[in-house]
């Protein structure tokens, strides 16, 4: 596929801000657009377990945070003034009474289509899809998924899935069509809806599922993170439990692009990040998926790997990183890119460090350390 670089230019901005959702609260890192110096602020929600904090790009000032605490049930907090003040959702995501299902935590937040201001989607653990039409104040279950007759077969039991609970993530809204959506589920796989969530179908052809016997099934896979390619919503990239994949629609068969990764590094990881204007450029952050799955930087030598040709080839980028004894784990929501040119690339570790690059991964430096376990980072420009 020819390299595509969209004509759109970065939006003017006076600063770059990172929302850092951790196991113990919310912090922000703010810099001018040159990204020379960063100022750490926080915590907000100290002691709350935050799985995601997201800014609404449609207005630039609405923030939503998915929260719970060790004792208390899950909720969503919302700010309409860029984080100065917060209010709790009056009806947080919750399954229907009598369904037998209980939301343990909201895991993922996605602003809706630009034509629907105030619409947001939330993915929960265990797997559930919820929609808000009032900027996060109240949430309703998306019955087309939550009550789908195949849902249990797709997802397995609520006790299955990742160690901290099965989850729905990577809720993607096609920027050309608000009714066209994708979701990722661990476990379950990638699913597509073309009718605003009224119905869903599995979209996992070509993806390995090494934890099942026999040929890969239609569903039951473990996508860790799925993203639209920058500027091209007909292409998706996926970091899966079993490799790295690319999907070019209208095909429904994923191509294994992890096979080109160095064998000694492997193709296991959690996040995938994309260049906002170049559909051929993406980054992954490999982790050790051998033996008992340490899920740490392979060999204690962390690196991101960048492809500029849609995954045909990969280049190691590790300038600025420790050269040894750095056993980082980076979770699926914890790598993000900004809209600047050159683009900034950021990620946070479970050991509480934030690393950033202002030159598209050519060099990195540590922007913050000693934070709690980082669940998610989102660049907010």
């Amino acid at each position, binding site marked *: 596929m020819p390299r595509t670089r969209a004509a759109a230019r970065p939006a003017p901005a006076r600063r770059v801000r990172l929302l850092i959702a951790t196991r113990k609260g919310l912090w922000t890192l703010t810099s001018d657009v040159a990204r020379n110096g960063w100022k750490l602020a926080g915590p907000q929600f100290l002691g709350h377990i935050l799985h995601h904090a997201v800014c609404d790009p449609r207005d630039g000032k609405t923030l939503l945070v998915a929260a719970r605490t*060790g*004792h*208390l*049930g899950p*909720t969503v907090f919302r700010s309409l003034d860029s984080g100065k003040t917060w209010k709790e*959702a009056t009806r947080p995501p*919750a399954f229907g*009474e009598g369904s037998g*299902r*209980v939301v343990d935590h909201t895991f993922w937040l996605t602003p809706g289509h630009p034509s629907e201001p105030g619409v947001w989607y939330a993915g929960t653990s265990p797997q559930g899809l919820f929609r808000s039409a009032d900027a996060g104040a109240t949430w309703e279950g998306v019955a087309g998924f939550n009550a789908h007759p195949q849902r249990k077969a797709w997802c397995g039991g609520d006790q299955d899935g990742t160690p901290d609970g099965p989850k729905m993530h990577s809720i993607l809204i096609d920027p050309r069509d608000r009714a066209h959506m994708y979701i990722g589920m661990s476990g379950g796989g990638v699913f597509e809806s073309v009718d605003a969530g009224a119905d869903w179908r599995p979209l996992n052809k070509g993806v390995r599922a090494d934890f099942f016997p026999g040929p890969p099934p239609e569903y039951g896979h473990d996508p860790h993170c799925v993203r639209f390619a920058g500027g091209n919503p007909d292409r998706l990239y996926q970091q899966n439990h079993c490799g790295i994949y690319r999907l070019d629609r209208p095909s429904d068969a994923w191509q294994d692009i992890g096979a080109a990764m160095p064998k000694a590094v492997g193709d296991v990881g959690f996040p995938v990040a994309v260049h906002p204007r170049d559909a051929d450029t993406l980054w992954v952050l490999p982790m050790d998926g051998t033996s008992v799955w340490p899920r740490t930087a392979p060999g204690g030598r962390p690196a991101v790997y960048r492809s500029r040709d849609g995954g045909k080839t990969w280049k190691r980028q590790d300038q600025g990183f420790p050269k040894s004894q750095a056993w980082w784990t980076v979770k699926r929501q914890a790598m993000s890119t900004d809209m600047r040119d050159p683009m900034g690339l950021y990620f946070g570790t479970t050991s509480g460090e934030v690393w950033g690059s202002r030159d598209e991964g050519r060099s990195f430096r540590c922007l913050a350390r000693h934070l709690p376990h980082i669940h998610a980072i989102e660049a907010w420009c």
Partner: protein
Amino acid sequence: MTARASREAAIVVRVQIPSPLLSYTGQAEVAVAIPVLAPELPPTVSSVLAALDGAYPGIRFRIVDEQRQLRPHIKLFVGGQLIRDLSTPLTSDSEMMIVAALSGG
């Protein structure tokens, strides 16, 4: 923390609030009025939680899930006794304590 019957056929229950929920109430002890619909239909623990949620919106869902079950690390004591059944009736001298129990690091 005692409950008493009011002239409007209601009892007022004083509830002790644990620190994780102080962001809702702002105080460690609050009083909520529970209507008594009929002598044979005494207020229950569930009706106290509903009244609490009316006064402090959102607090109930943090301690009771959507299937009307207490969340794993929340305990309720009424009159010093551990209560697991939210349909437990309250007597005129009931008192309630919400406890956020151990939940890990």
